[in-house]
């Protein structure tokens, strides 16, 4: 479980321009969904999206739940009504089945 290599190192100073060109190209790996944008916004506030896209970071649905709770508790800017949508989107699209 090598997820979050960069999460903890890039936790600060990423603001003002949320979607850099790099971020936009990373976002292309995220399947279309009504929740896609809120996932990208929540995750990229603190770290690069390559953590999620990397095949070596595949996790179980339970792990995604743990990590989303962890990130939100840590202070990721997520509204209460969006939390479960984000977990479901990551579990559906980026988990080991």
């Amino acid at each position, binding site marked *: 479980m090598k997820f979050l*290599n960069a999460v903890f190192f890039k936790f600060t100073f990423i603001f*003002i321009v949320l979607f850099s060109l790099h971020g936009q190209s990373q976002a292309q790996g995220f399947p279309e969904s009504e929740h896609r944008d809120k996932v990208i916004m929540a995750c990229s506030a*603190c770290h690069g999206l390559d953590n999620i896209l990397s095949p070596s970071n595949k996790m179980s649905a339970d792990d995604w739940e743990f990590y989303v709770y962890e990130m939100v508790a840590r202070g990721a800017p997520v509204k*209460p009504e969006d939390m479960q949508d984000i977990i479901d989107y990551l579990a559906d699209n980026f988990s080991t089945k």
Partner: protein
Amino acid sequence: MRELVNDLVNAKISRRSFLAGMAAASYSATAAKSALAAVEPFIPGAELPKNYVRTVEGTGADLMMEQMVETGTKYLFCSNGSGLGPFSDSLVGRTDMQLIQATHEGQVVAIADGYAKVTKKPSFCMYSRVGLPHSTSNMYNAMKDRTGLVIMSDHSNSDREGTDSHEDIDNWIEAVRFYTKWRWEAHHSERLAEWVRRAYKVAGVLPGGPTALRIPRDIMYKKTKGAIFSGEALNVAMDLRPDTSEVERAAKVILSAKSPLMKVGPEVGQCEARAAVVELCELVGIPVIQHRSIFADFPNTHPLWLGEDHNLGAYLREYQQPFDLYLNFGARQEPGGFGRTNPVKEIHASVDMDTVGRNSPTVANLVGNINEIAKDLIEAIKSLANTNQLKQLAEERMRVAGGLTTAWQESRLNAGRLSKGSPVPWQRLAYELRQQLEPDAVIVEEQGTEYKSLGMFPFADDAMMKIGRTEGRALGWGVGASAGVKLALPNRQVIALQGDGGYLFGQNDSLWTMSRYDIPVMIVVFNNGTYEETRWQIMGRMGPAGQANRDYVSYLGNPRVDFTHLAAAYNIDGAVVQNSNQLKGAIRKGLRTLADGRPFMLDVHIRTLGVGAEVTDYQKFSLAEQRTRKV
């Protein structure tokens, strides 16, 4: 000010003229009156305040003790050493000075530091000359935090100085040069009280910091007599006001900003300026983020509270105006300025003139007490804009930031509540603590990624209080500091949040102190069996160690420390929690123990996460297997 004082004591001007002159020089009325009170005894014909100065006969240590009591010192933090002999003799028959002893000099300083951070007055500690090197780690922490400490160690007898003899080296005092504001080796018994006064004064004036005295033992034993001044003689007015024209200029810049942002730092807490800073931010609607700090410098449940840097993107998405003004209140500057590659113009407010404008350009510099700066800015802004204009400015930003703050806080608590399992997710532990702690509990924190648990607790002047983590980041501070905090606030619940790695930097020695003196603190160890932050830093770089999935220095799991066993050795009760469903009962037991007047150790096995979380191997070595003789 110096000229005014000179004129006053030489009877060239009246008291009224002195006060007028002070006002003209931008000092507040309170500051001017305080300065007058301090100078008054020296004005010809003036009456000394009662007991302003008296002569005391006794040993050098007696004089020091008398002077310390006059400063308001209640506790003498110490460890063992024969140099404490003169003080031991002085204590006989005294009831106005309480020793608080620890079994290691580093923890003595941590305890004194926690006490000083809360009282905002210098605390006094003393230990053996050979213990001085032990103590420098937490001395460094205090220096980085600008916390006032008076640190004293003894010295070889005068006839041994400079001989490189028993327990002595040349230039001891040089060893603490970079961790102290001022340091002195004393050689005259009759002047010991004077040096104590100086050490307190220098340590206490903002920006504060440790001062060090080193005194040969024979000097402290020697009979002498000297002047002891009352605490009033040391009272330096600290409500220094910023330059009025600079305040006015800054006010105009603030009013013309379309999207301001404030970052608050530790000087806000040190200057007791939270209320004034909140009023200033509300007046214009300035959202706030927190710089690293030993305090919570802005209420984290306030509608203008955005928390940390990474939340700014979400705010800007809704407010849709890029930041055009950055107010740095009481924090050291970001190297290169806020925004770095695209710096935003900055106003820097600080009590430390060496810090203002040091690392990046500014549009206005406000040097003075942060509380006075905030109050003066409020007045200046009110004089430049009417109520309707200000309301218009503030309303939208308050609405946007307030909506986000409320939502994020709710999410955070939900995430904590919903997390569960074994080992325990840290956020569930923080959530359960929040549910059971007193509304005004004090959290003393020393963890690797501190914000992660602190975000669960409401910090404000009328809510919980946060002390720590130190700016210096030298581990081995939190447990000792929590004992000092509890001594300063005996009627508030005090909880030490401690990483297992940080705890193991020699903090058992404070358990001895807590147990001996019945200091009821609950130590909560987030025990994940690893130095998680260093593991992330080292393995996360994906160099050879990261690619090989090897953890060389961070894994703590063999042996996995049982912290309740450590506590038991000091007659301190505790509980081990391995599953989130055990948390409620264990916390309840701990808080009952505190209520009964005893400390408590809560050892919670925490789930690891991030790079290398699953790695349990390390560079194996067994000396026993290397032996050729099994002895």
